[in-house]
């Protein structure tokens, strides 16, 4: 199996290490934080030209923070859960003094005067920000191709998309530019790119992680979560991100004292896992179906109860998602008028023209399309048939999941219906979020983990979902599978791809 060339990582390079291994390295003084950060920066500088993950790299501040962290370690001070861990941040999350663009012309020069709550939390936990990564404009999309600034390429095959909207985050982790990148998930925007890039991605329960400082797309669906190389790193990162925040009234206070890393090692013995029939439908790629079903059998061997179940309502989930998310986007993006900050047009006749010209010149095609679709379903002729019905349907979906989770601990399904597709093939296909968007409607948590590779060498993602605030069960299921499959050390080999391209 050496189609694209796997990078076998019994190699000891720092950029191949998990968060755990990095922390061990610091503790035993095998290398300093500064050396680690330098190695990541060097790798980004030499290879990101091919991947296009980063929109902004902040080398100076990262090196400064690394030096400060080394001093702390030398003095034997507490360094935090992510002490000295280099990370990347999706460019729709506000970082004080560091450009935050949402990959849109409208915020091309926007420098936030404050940190998002999760940025504060990550800094308090000792993480070091290497830079900001690419996304679909305003996180609306599923291939990162609607970014106004650059394309991002899938590290496993440079002719494929990395998925989206957190394509920059997933590609950065897969390429070894950072062991963790923060993403956001409104309909699958963490899980789908995590699956396409062979990484682990968690969409937490709605309310588990504060969104203060996240530039919103659809506020009733938006969540923030980690993308990492391993399940352990994902659990650690989630632990650092989570918690109630008085600045986000939707953030909740529940189960804050669980230690996920200890909890996840309990295995799946005795857990009841449902396989939802409707998610293995005619839209699903047969190779993905086979790989996911094989993984389900591994759970059975590990002592879980597996049962086929039916949840017909999820067929409509994608429609309700598309309507609600567009409606909320149209309202959230109404504020970009070019008056106080952000892009403003030079030529206009009156105030209406100033606003309309600003918006038309600075929003990309897909963003405009969603604003208009959202405005349409909120307009009086369409409101009752589309928007209001979607809200009711959302409630029904939530109730159905609540019923299911009275009997089952986890549900298992593919993350995506297709393998990563060619760049330029589909700009925006709502079906890409077919297996992920329903969870955003219900507000329940889901995780995507790599479960194998296609014959063409592309990663395949498996998704687990659980009841509200049952992330511990997701980690138990994900960790078990990671151990059983033993593919966690397979990484794309960027150097070999270069050779192949040059031939």
């Amino acid at each position, binding site marked *: 199996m050496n189609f694209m060339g796997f990078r076998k990582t019994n190699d000891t390079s720092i950029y191949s290490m998990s968060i755990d291994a990095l922390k061990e390295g610091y503790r035993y003084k095998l290398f300093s934080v500064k050396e680690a950060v330098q190695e990541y920066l060097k790798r980004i500088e030499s290879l990101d030209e091919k991947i296009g993950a980063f929109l902004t790299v902040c080398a100076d501040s990262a090196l400064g923070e690394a030096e400060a962290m080394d001093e702390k370690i030398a003095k034997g001070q507490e360094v935090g859960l992510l002490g000295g861990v280099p990370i990347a941040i999706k460019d729709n999350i506000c970082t*004080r*003094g560091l450009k935050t663009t949402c990959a849109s012309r409208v915020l091309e*020069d*926007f*420098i936030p*005067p404050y940190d998002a709550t999760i940025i504060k939390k990550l800094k308090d936990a000792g993480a070091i920000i290497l830079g900001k990564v690419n996304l679909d404009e305003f996180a609306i999309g599923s291939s990162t191709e609607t970014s106004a600034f650059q394309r991002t390429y899938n590290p496993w095959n440079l002719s494929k998309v990395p998925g989206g909207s957190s394509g920059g985050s997933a590609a950065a982790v897969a390429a070894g530019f950072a062991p963790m990148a923060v993403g956001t998930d409104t309909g699958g925007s963490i899980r789908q790119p995590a699956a396409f890039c062979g990484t682990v991605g968690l969409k937490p329960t709605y309310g588990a992680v504060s969104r203060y400082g996240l530039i919103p797309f659809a506020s009733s669906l938006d969540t923030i979560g980690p993308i990492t190389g391993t399940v352990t790193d994902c659990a650690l990162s989630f632990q650092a991100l989570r918690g109630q925040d*008085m*600045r986000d*009234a939707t953030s909740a206070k529940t189960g804050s004292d669980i230690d996920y890393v200890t909890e996840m090692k309990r295995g799946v013995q005795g857990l009841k896992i449902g396989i939802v029939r409707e998610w293995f439908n005619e839209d699903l790629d047969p190779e993905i179906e086979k790989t996911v079903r094989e993984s389900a059998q591994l759970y059975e061997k590990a002592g879980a109860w597996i049962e086929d179940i039916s949840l017909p*309502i999820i*067929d*409509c989930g994608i*429609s*309700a998602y*598309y*309507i609600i998310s567009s409606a909320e986007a*149209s309202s959230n993006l*109404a504020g970009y*008028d070019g*008056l*106080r*900050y*952000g892009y*403003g047009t030079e030529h*206009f006749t*009156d*105030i*209406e023209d*100033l*606003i*309309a*010209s600003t*918006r*038309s010149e600075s*929003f990309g095609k897909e963003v*405009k*399309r969603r*604003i*208009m*679709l959202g*405005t*349409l379903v909120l*307009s009086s*002729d*369409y409101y009752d*048939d*589309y928007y209001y*019905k*979607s*809200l*009711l*349907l959302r*409630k*029904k979906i939530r109730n159905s999941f609540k019923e299911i989770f009275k009997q089952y601990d986890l549900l298992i399904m593919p993350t995506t219906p297709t393998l990563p597709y060619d760049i330029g093939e589909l700009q925006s296909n709502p079906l890409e979020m077919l297996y992920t968007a329903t969870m955003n409607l219900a507000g329940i948590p889901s995780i995507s983990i790599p479960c194998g590779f296609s014959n063409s060498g592309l990663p395949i993602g498996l998704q687990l979902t659980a009841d509200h605030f049952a992330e511990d069960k997701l980690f138990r299921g994900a960790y078990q599978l990671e151990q059983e499959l033993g593919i966690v050390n397979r990484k794309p080999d960027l150097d070999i791809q270069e050779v192949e391209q040059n031939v």
Partner: protein
Amino acid sequence: VKVERDTIQYITRLSKLKITDYEASELAKDFQQVLECLGNIKEEDLRGLDLEPEVEIPSILRKDEVINFENHRELFQNAKRIRDSFIAIPKVLD
């Protein structure tokens, strides 16, 4: 439902955007298809559902207190023009 080009023009105004006639025709076709696709929600039985929350959600408003933002310059760094301590916006009235 048929999405007419007039509807698109109306929606464009509401959205505070500008599009060409050609784009309006294209979007009318596009949205027609999208709405047909999304029409499957109409077949769902939604009787007996309402949007009331099942459990009373306790108010979690934070205390209403003044927190001074120390660095005013930073707060205004994204404004295009500042005059005295105000954000200056383009002249839109004669």
